[in-house]
């Protein structure tokens, strides 16, 4: 059965200088699903996500969004369909949470039309969904790591796109906050039907929250499929060089990796 995929990478190659990072990588991001990209450090996860979001020019192949090469499409029109939250984003000092979230409306605005009724609704909805409404008036640097990450996600949500890409949204969060954030992302995926693709470094969390997992190794897709298909002892060994036992998580039933 072929799945519907508005976003896909078709044999893309990316290199920095002479170093190839992605090598004719081919993958699809299934619509409406929660996809997680995993792989060892520096294997090209962020580069793949940035390429999928047209932030990274590709040397060969193309990223296709809605049937057309994404790099050839108008950036603003792409931004109305696809939002990306880069790894460790930065904002100017003193920026308030609400103003950050308002920035998410950029592709729907113009210099003269900076505030429509839809903008107001989308911003309030994003603040509500992420539980940041009561923090809206605070500057970003006054927030804890978890709250700050939620503020950034609220910005991406306010962009009101069908596709949402997140690069390691759980970096620097402790376990309870990681779970909280991933539960939020999963809820957004389930309730609004948004396609979500994110990079995570924790395989067990990936296995628990993902519908679809893409395991990268050396700039190529090593294996892609459901958590049960991808998170196996053989794959963990070949992708991460990690000898381990994989059991079924007794609570959630998803595959659970226990390093040897």
């Amino acid at each position, binding site marked *: 059965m072929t799945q519907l995929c508005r976003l896909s990478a078709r044999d893309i190659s990316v290199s920095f200088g002479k170093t190839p990072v992605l090598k004719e990588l081919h993958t699809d991001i299934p619509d409406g699903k929660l996809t997680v990209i995993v792989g060892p450090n520096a294997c090209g996860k962020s580069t793949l996500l940035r390429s999928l979001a047209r932030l990274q020019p590709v040397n060969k192949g193309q990223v296709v969004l809605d049937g057309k090469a994404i790099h050839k499409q108008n*950036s*603003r029109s792409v931004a109305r369909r696809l939002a990306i939250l880069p790894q460790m984003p930065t904002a100017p000092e003193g920026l308030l949470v609400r103003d950050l979230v*308002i920035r998410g409306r*950029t592709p729907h605005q*113009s*210099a003269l039309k900076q505030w429509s009724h839809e903008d107001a609704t989308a911003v309030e909805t994003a603040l509500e969904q992420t539980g940041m409404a009561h923090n809206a008036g605070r500057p970003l640097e006054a927030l804890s790591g978890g709250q700050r990450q939620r503020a950034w996600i609220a910005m991406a949500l306010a962009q009101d796109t069908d596709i949402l890409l997140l690069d390691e949204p759980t970096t620097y969060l402790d376990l309870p906050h990681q779970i909280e954030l991933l539960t939020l992302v999963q809820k957004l995926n389930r309730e609004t039907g948004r396609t979500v693709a994110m990079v995570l470094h924790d395989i067990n969390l990936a296995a628990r929250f993902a519908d679809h997992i893409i395991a990268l190794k050396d700039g190529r897709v090593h294996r892609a499929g459901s958590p049960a298909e991808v998170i196996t002892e053989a794959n963990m060994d070949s992708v991460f060089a990690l000898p381990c036992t994989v059991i079924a998580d007794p609570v959630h039933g998803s595959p659970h990796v226990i390093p040897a």
Partner: protein
Amino acid sequence: MILRLPFLSMHLPARAITVSLCLVSLLVVALLSALHLGAYPLNISQIGQAVLGHAEGIQRMIVLDHRLPRILTAIGAGAAFGLAGSMFQTMLRNPLASPDVIGFSAGASCGALLAMILTGGFVLFGALIGGVVTALVVIGLAWKDGLHPYRLILVGIGASLTLSAGADLLMTKLDALTAAEMAKWLVGSLNARNWADVQLIWVGLAVLLPLSLWLQFPLTRLAMADDIANGLGVALSSMRLAITATAVALVALAVSVAGPLPFVAFVSGPISRRLVRQGKPALLQAAIVGALVTLLADMAARSVPLVHLPTGVFTAIIGAPVLMWLLLVQFKKGTL
């Protein structure tokens, strides 16, 4: 507060409005005191009559031919410097990256000087070329996988010093009298401005101020990281180009009527940002702060009796401590 007209809708934060009103009031007060300031005593009603064109003789001459053009040039040039500085600082995400610190003003004044020597005119044109070339060279040399703050500052300061030395060399081509006048202009001087200068700077501002305010929308997004601005659909390269072109034009314009007044572009952005708060560029407020700083510095220059100190001496006195303070802050935060 939300402004909603058929063709224009935007947020107008109460604080930004209050700050703007206060700054404008201060500017008006400063303007009136500047009209009053001078060796020839004139009271308010005499000044008022002169401004309205009801005065004759010396009274009219002092107000309309001397004080008013000088004041209006100061306000216009200060506003242009303030806008340009704030635009560069925001776009390059670094308060040190203002045109007077990283050599763009020096480039514009070198260009102006060269045009003066070669053709006896075309000062604005020379300043434009000088400013654009310097901006391209400095940003080009400092660019390596993006713009690193310290590289930009070092290259910029290097360019600034080289260009100032270049200007000194060019001066030897002039006769002593012109050279003396030019030397003052190179420090930044508003001495003996006339209505042609006023016209030049204000016509320029009439075009470039609305353009700058329009560019404030992409500029605000560019102040975030490249990936974020890009992801939000901002056309990075073309917007950067438009902002650079506008800001360099503002610098060239200001330099051609007032010389490279040091530090006005540099202090206006940080001051207006701190007044308005909320981490947004406040271009309009930066323009008013620039105008105010320049006018106050010029009043200081005019109130020193007998010697004609150039205005730039006083903008430097205001700006240099701010530069040191910002360097210290950035150094402590490790962002330099």
